[in-house]
């Protein structure tokens, strides 16, 4: 492959052979070293060869090896001549992040942090097999899939802003519950309002540094030491099953295609086919489930804060999807084209004035929420015109693992918990092993990822937050 450095935060693999477009990599010398150690560059080349792809196969600063696409992969395929692929979205459809602000400060919350974590731990079930107290009938589950966050609001949880201050207003209208299998529905029935396990978390965070005061203020981030809350989770078993069902259906219906691809997880449905439409409708339904899930959790968090602190204001900032495909319009060679825009482990980063943004953020651009790993900083950025031009309105989504779960066995959860408590970070987890597997040492340097996003101009720094209390699955 012909890898060429464009500048300090951008690299390119030139188009050659059967590549339809070049690969564009937002990265630094330090982050490039990580990329060269795994298969992610080859995975981005595999994507560049797919039919109907426009401009470039993009990699965000936090890219690393995935299945099919790399994590951090972004690609646009023509809505009629291109394709849609579950391998460009990921198993956890609409895994994402919701941020809430409070009118409390660190001084008010830290003395009660352990009590607060206990209260939230009870309200937001986490870990393997955790069950929601919301029991859904078949008809109610279908309504969740159709209406997303709106279902939650209609059933007495959350606020209008919880639903509207989110990508797609917490609801993709294309969703069709009849395209979601019974298997997927059975996995999702008891899980609405649960966090899950793995890298998912609920964090009480402290505003650590504000880089752009005017924009931060518009987002509701007023001052240093203000307490905010970050919810990181997805569509749970239902979304995983939708991805899996359609991967299997795509390979069954098109075995020659599946056999011809460098990875089976890259199998796709050609745009314009019934299968492509069915998958998009099912994926939208799973995405709606994830928005409903985060809306329920936001409601429980608000009630939990009221339980501990009495009269307190808990307001939504925004909610972003990290694993999703959408029908979007982008300018390609001076012409507006409708595309299946795939973001797999990437955050949408739309600029000021974009028609898809809520009124509140039309002037500033979209809040871009990037979680760190357990016990490290997270960031709030803002979307830019440069992202629209360079990365299909996308930037990074997190830190990315650097160490295998097996390798984390060298750490004892008790030691990690103690180390974090010395730094005034308190952890409540359904599992000790989970703490060890998700320890800060297992993840890459998020600061470097954010620096590249900011310097490349595809997501500009607004504020940095650090954890005070963490709930892990």
């Amino acid at each position, binding site marked *: 492959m012909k890898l060429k450095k464009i500048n300090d935060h951008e690299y390119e693999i030139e188009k050659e052979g059967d590549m339809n477009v070049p690969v564009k990599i937002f990265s630094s010398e330090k982050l490039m070293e990580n990329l060269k150690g*795994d298969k992610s560059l080859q995975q981005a080349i595999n994507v560049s060869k797919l039919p109907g792809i426009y401009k470039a196969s993009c990699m965000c600063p936090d890219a*690393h*090896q*995935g*299945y099919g696409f790399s*994590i951090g992969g972004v690609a646009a395929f023509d809505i009629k001549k291109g394709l849609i692929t579950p391998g460009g979205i990921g*198993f*956890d459809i609409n895994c994402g992040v919701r941020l809430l602000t409070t009118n409390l400060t660190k001084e008010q919350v830290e003395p009660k942090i352990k009590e607060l974590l206990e209260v939230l731990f009870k309200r937001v079930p986490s*870990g*393997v*097999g955790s069950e929601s107290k919301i029991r859904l009938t078949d008809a109610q589950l279908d309504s969740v899939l159709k209406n997303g966050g709106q279902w939650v609001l209609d059933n007495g949880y959350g606020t209008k802003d919880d639903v509207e201050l989110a990508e797609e207003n917490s609801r993709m209208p294309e969703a069709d519950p009849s395209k979601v299998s019974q*298997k997927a529905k*059975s*996995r999702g*029935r*008891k*899980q609405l309002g649960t966090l*899950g*396990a*793995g890298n998912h978390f609920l964090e009480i965070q402290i505003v650590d540094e504000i880089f752009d005061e005017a924009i931060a203020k518009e987002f509701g981030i007023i001052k240093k030491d203000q307490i905010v809350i970050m919810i990181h989770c997805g569509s749970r*078993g239902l979304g*995983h*099953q939708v*991805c*899996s069902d359609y*991967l*299997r259906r795509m*390979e*069954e219906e098109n*075995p020659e295609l599946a056999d011809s691809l460098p*990875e*089976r*997880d890259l199998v796709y449905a050609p745009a314009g086919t019934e299968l492509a439409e069915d998958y998009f409708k099912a994926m939208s339904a799973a995405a709606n489930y994830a928005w409903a899930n985060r809306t329920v959790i936001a409601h429980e968090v608000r009630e939990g804060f009221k339980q501990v602190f009495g009269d307190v204001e808990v307001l939504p900032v925004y909610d972003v999807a990290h694993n999703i495909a959408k029908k979007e319009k982008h300018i390609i060679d001076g012409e507006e084209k409708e595309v299946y825009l795939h973001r797999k482990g990437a955050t949408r980063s739309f600029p000021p004035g974009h028609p898809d943004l809520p009124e509140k953020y039309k002037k500033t651009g979209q809040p871009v929420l990037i979680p760190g790993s357990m016990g490290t900083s997270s960031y709030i950025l803002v979307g830019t015109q440069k992202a629209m031009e360079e990365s299909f309105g996308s930037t990074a989504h997190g830190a990315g*693992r*650097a*160490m*295998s*779960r*097996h*390798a984390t066995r060298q750490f004892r959860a008790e030691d990690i918990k103690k180390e974090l408590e010395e730094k005034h970070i308190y952890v409540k987890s*359904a*599992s*000790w*092993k*989970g703490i060890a*597997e998700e320890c800060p040492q297992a993840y890459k340097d998020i600061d470097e990822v954010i620096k590249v996003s900011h310097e490349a101009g595809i997501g500009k720094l607004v504020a940095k937050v650090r954890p005070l209390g963490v709930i892990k*699955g």
Partner: protein
Amino acid sequence: MKKFEYLEHTADVKIKAYGNNLEETFTNVALGMFNHLTDIEKVKPVIKHELNIKAKRVKSLLYDFLEDLLILLDTDGFILNKIEKISIKEEGEEFILHAICYGDSYKNYDVNGNIKSITYNDMEITDKEIIVVVDV
């Protein structure tokens, strides 16, 4: 003989299982998957589930077999302890698996982590060795 082991993988869990024939190797890869969540030796064989799976390729058969077990985990909190009377047959253009699985509810054990999905990534199947990566 070792039933299974975990190979190095940065983000997910890569299981290598061994057996004397395809049935035993399928059994051991399933045990390896649940052992990621808890020590399966301690799980009591008190709940019984019967699996019947058909697929066109042996890789798809393994994928669907493990996936059906995952669905039992998500819907009933089922944790596997052992598999009895497993058979894999090739009939015409199809592979057919039948198995009786025993285990218990997760609530009675110290269960950690999660499994999101089975993947085809680096999947290898012979009668005596199977490698599979599960997305966690």
